[in-house]
């Protein structure tokens, strides 16, 4: 019945990193969407709505002054460009389920820990499948910035995952 609700909730969850806050942000966003409907110019409704969701999330986070929790571990910076696909291959074994769970947590935690400028472009691209043009409209940034932030976000994530796997390898 409601258009784009899952997309709105997914974005809100990854921006606020919390189910309850995502819920509140989506409620707020839909009410605003209806209030702002006069500004809707007949373009695709999804980016328009996601833009309102994004705004509602950041307003909520600002209110909560949650930025203290936003510090990303930048130690991975030195590994920029050095990480390759090989380190993402995980060993298979009798503990395959536990390993899969650990890997999932690692990717989740890394994404959650990423600064929101990078996290939002990555989520919109990989989970929502948005084109650069749509991301630019939603986040209110030039397409060139979308491109550079996306590249940076992927490097950060790659290095974070690779770093963690290397530590686990040498730690045992």
């Amino acid at each position, binding site marked *: *019945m409601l258009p784009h609700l899952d997309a709105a909730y997914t974005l809100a969850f990854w921006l606020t990193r919390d*189910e309850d806050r995502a819920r509140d942000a989506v409620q707020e966003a839909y009410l605003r969407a*209806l209030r702002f409907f006069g500004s809707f110019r*007949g373009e695709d409704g999804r980016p328009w709505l996601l833009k309102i969701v994004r705004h509602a999330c950041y307003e909520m986070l600002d209110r909560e002054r949650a930025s203290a929790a936003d510090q990303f571990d930048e130690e991975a910076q030195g590994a920029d460009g050095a990480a*390759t696909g090989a380190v993402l291959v995980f060993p298979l074994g009798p503990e395959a389920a536990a390993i899969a769970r650990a890997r999932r947590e690692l*990717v*989740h935690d890394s994404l959650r820990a990423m600064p929101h400028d990078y996290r939002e472009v990555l989520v919109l691209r*990989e989970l929502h499948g948005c084109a*650069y043009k749509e991301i630019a409209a939603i986040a209110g940034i030039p397409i060139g910035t979308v491109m550079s932030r996306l590249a940076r976000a992927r490097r950060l994530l790659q290095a974070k*995952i690779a770093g963690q796997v290397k530590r686990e390898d040498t730690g045992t």
Partner: protein
Amino acid sequence: MNCLETARLLNPYVDGELDLSAALAIEEHIQACARCRASFEGLQAVRAAVSRECEFKTAPESLRLSLEAGIAGEGARSVVSLLRSPLAAAAPGIAALLLVGWLMLAGAPNSGRPPASGQTRVVYHISASDTAGAALRNLANHLNAAPELKAVVVAHNYGVDFLLRGARDDAGELYETAVRDLSRRGVEFRVCDNTLGRRNIAPGEVIPAATLVPSGIAEIGRLQSREGFIYLRL
């Protein structure tokens, strides 16, 4: 295409954002250059990790219901279908009209439909069992602050539990006592019959102070669109 250009365009390449000639040039370079190929594979691996491990979420059913109830009414449905279909929204005039229609039907502030008697009409929607106690307390406070209030409680889903015979709150008190007090003060309690059917609860289980309505959600929509109630969800 050299390594520097490839590195710069690798992200738009994997995202399908390059035109054909640039994409072909990248492919050619990746075939020839092991270092750039490794970067490409690393990029694909991290993309796969995100899309595999970080799910596209499904909004909770309670959120969906609450939003639907909150924007119930014909106007809202039209707005929603417009949002869904970009072509149909080409006329801003119609959009503005629908927006006004929605505001009126939803009984929002500044709506064009003043309550008939200056009386505040509120429908409380209770859809979870653990919020019932707080809802009843809020409702009593609401009545104390605004004695002319007309309140209807619509219970739906697990929100019906507190209106069943013998149901007690965390302190061990019968909910029925508080419900009767509020009933005497003019509050009406309505229970969703669909919920009872779905959860195999006999209508006789419901305390006498509450009445049954065929659908809790439809009731909320009706109260808002036809009777000028505003919506509070607890």
